[in-house]
């Protein structure tokens, strides 16, 4: 047992939690404002692709003279690219769901599909390869063994809590998600709140994507998020749309992921089954077997003025 439960497991847990936490916290804003976001998976992928391609393009001139040239600002530019692209993709979701009152699930599905095909088109055009991008030299730095985005993810928990429950903006956001008519009556701009919240979720998912492609790995690989956007969605439900709950849920799910990695080839539990635990737990929670998870009342419904 002790060869599984050690400090390394804790490290892997934190590293697998970070992208889930970033994504789930972002998704929390979107869903709290009343817009379902099953496109988190796609937004992670777009962010990851943007980060890897941006870093590769930016570092190319430096690599001509020195193939190992480290330039401090380049990975951060990659993060910026991921944030911008994630936000832009989220804006499309927001536009279609809010302005054109589309079914938010359909819109999210479309973006997830787009995230499977779109990056491949770019990769083919840039690298003549449909599955992965060039490996980059300038990855995100490590601070005491962890990527800065890992720290950011955990710092975001109290920040999100404070924003959501202690600021007027957070109050309005929750009002818009629970009872948009009432919020509108007291002068809250429902549409603008929702646009902001959805774009915010894309920005956070983009950060998670940047972590995957230039923090965890050093390239973009097709479908590299492998369902993490959906695990984040599950964590969001499991954590009852609350920042602290989300923290607990993502830690638990991150722990399962870490466990699945550590258990490979071991004798305790088959790791393929451990990987299914988060999904199973979420279903149980949603059905009310373990506590009750109640979504924001106006979620998924386009607001008609």
């Amino acid at each position: 047992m002790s060869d599984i439960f050690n400090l390394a497991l804790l490290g892997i847990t934190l590293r697998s939690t970070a992208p889930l936490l970033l994504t789930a916290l972002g998704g929390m804003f979107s869903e709290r404002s009343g817009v379902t976001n099953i496109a988190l998976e796609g937004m992670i992928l777009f962010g990851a692709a943007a980060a890897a391609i941006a870093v590769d393009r930016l570092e190319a001139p430096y690599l001509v003279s020195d193939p190992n040239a480290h330039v401090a600002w380049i990975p951060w530019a990659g993060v910026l690219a991921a944030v911008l692209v994630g936000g832009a993709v989220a804006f499309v979701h927001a536009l279609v769901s809010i302005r054109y009152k589309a079914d938010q699930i359909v819109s999210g599905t479309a973006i997830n599909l787009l995230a499977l095909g779109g990056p491949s088109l770019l990769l083919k055009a840039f690298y003549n390869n449909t599955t992965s991008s060039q490996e980059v030299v300038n990855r995100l730095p490590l601070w005491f063994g962890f990527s800065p985005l890992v720290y950011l993810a955990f710092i975001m928990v109290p920040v999100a809590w404070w924003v959501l429950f202690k600021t007027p903006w957070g109050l309005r956001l929750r009002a818009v998600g629970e009872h948009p008519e009432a919020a509108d009556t007291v002068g809250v701009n429902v549409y603008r709140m929702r646009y902001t919240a959805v774009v915010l979720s894309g920005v956070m998912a983009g950060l998670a994507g940047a972590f995957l492609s230039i923090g965890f790995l050093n390239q973009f690989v097709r479908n590299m998020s492998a369902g993490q956007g959906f695990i984040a969605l599950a964590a969001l439900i499991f954590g009852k749309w609350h920042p602290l709950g989300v923290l607990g849920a993502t830690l638990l799910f991150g722990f399962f992921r870490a466990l699945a990695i550590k258990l490979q080839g071991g004798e305790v539990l088959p790791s393929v089954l451990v990987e299914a635990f988060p999904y199973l737990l979420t279903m149980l929670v949603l059905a009310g077997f373990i506590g009750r998870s109640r979504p924001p009342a106006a979620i998924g419904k386009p607001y008609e003025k």
Partner: protein
Amino acid sequence: MFGTTFSRLLFVVSNTVLLGLLALAPWTVPKRDFDGAALLVTPFGMVSPRALQVPGPEHFLGSVTLGFWVFALLVVLAVVSFFHPNPRRRAQMLYILGGIGLAVFALEAVLFYQAVYSVNSAALAAGTEANRLPLKRYALSLGAYLGLFYSLALLLAARLQLPAGLAFLVRYRGVVVPLFSLLLASLFGMLVVALLTPAPGAKGLTLPLGNAITAKLDLVTYTFQLLFSPLVSLPGWFQSLLLATPLIFTGLGVAFGFRAGLFNIGAPGQLTLGAISCMLVGVYMPGPGWLVLPLSIVAAALGGALWGAIPGWLKARFGAHEVINTIMMNYIASSVFLFIISSNEYKFFGATLRLPFKAEGFEARSAEIPEGARLPFLLSTLAPQGHLSWAVPLAVVLALGVYAFFRRLDLGRRLLLAAAACLAGFVAGGFLPGPPVEISPALRSVRLNDSFFIAVVALFFYNFYLFRTAGGYELRALGFAPKAAEYAGVNIGRKTILAMAISGALVGLAATHYVAGGGIDEYRLKQSLPVSVGFDGIAVALMGQNTPTGVALSALLFGVLLTGGLQLNLQLGISRELVTVLQALIVLFIAAGGFLPRYFTDPLKAAEVETEAKASREASHTGKEAC
């Protein structure tokens, strides 16, 4: 909306843009190399980055120049007639211009193919080998097609000038919205291709601006010509049907859920479970092949039904949203799938569990279904041993005949009789001698199997169950207005579970194509099982507007595009994923109602438009009588 300043402005601007495109676009392409580099004929000369030549260029150039000036005149006349104050006269003139445009397009096509034919036959007469003809991959191109579409658009514009023109468009919104979304998605795809890919043969060259635009226009046209190229060959059709078959199943499954107001995005999971149960019965069930095969088909449906029914039950019993649960169950299914095929031995806290399912060897895969219990290839059913068989044609004719003849009986008996006639026809037809037929190696290599027939049956089932039975009526009522349905006595909980189960069963049947029919090259479970067709089913259902005909057509469309995508990769080096992008965009645009006004998506607003049109028509009638 029509006849206003805005619409006039729109008409003038779009016609000007069109005129510019017609002048720059390649109209015909007499020859093209394998990598796409071509000789492009535009109204104002030939463009070829690789300097390809053609004997007798004036023949090709002359007809294109003539065609351009005719269409230029048409465009000017159309703009002028659009400003006519009387809508009826406007419509008349647009109808005439559209008709002329169609005729000119036809003439253009005839002239072009005749010129190609004369060049090639002259070369043949001079002793050139048949596979080294001077003109290859020749085709009409963007300019000619623009002329065709412009003429059709004029006809449509003419219809819109007549009274109740808008109501006409709104009435057919079930077709207008998907087609308009397809058009938008294609335009977007063209833009992406033009931005990301250099024109064929022009890599590294700097062309003059006009020629560069012509070359890019050719690139986007050729991209879409390649995407639709399977439609012109029999193997292409077979390959497209091969890829369309699983899409029909998943599309029907998702559409069935939509009809009952449920969003089933668990198709990948249901497909996985269908595949697992299909394999389990096919491999481990003892008995003769003719018994095991049907049972494995039923098992595929049941596996999918189980995986669909669970989220249905969770929704009915606990109110848990089916979207989240079906997503979760996709991942659970993938875990179960890997659990079954990746190892034969698992350790649980030291204890060992042995499973018999993984086949020997390094690769993660199950044992293979024995030969007798496999679905045969479609070709060997249609033409066994080099002779066409009468079995399938006779079965279809007899079934349709019997169904049409017993008009008086109730639906159940009619269908039963038709099924019996179908079986009898199939057996009897098998004994009749058929004419010998030659099958090309290209056609023989397509692995289209009899699951295609199962897909056709599924389409009929969908149609009959939803639109001809009380149960289906209740399901649709549930989808339209759950509260009203409950008030009318529909047991919502039970219906929800049933709807999800049938939806899952339809999806699960796709496994018959992959496992029992060898759609993944082997008759077993493998990691290459493409579960993402489950998501593609959402696109198919939306594009098909949840009608059986629509689902069949849109599955075929995507099948064609996916098949053409292979050529795209081979010839132009554009990723086949372009098709996925198009699919995603179509879904996105349909979700947004094609960005069309609300009365195209909202049934209530649509009804308002139609009522208004009716009222104005009646008003104009009474007005005439008063005169």
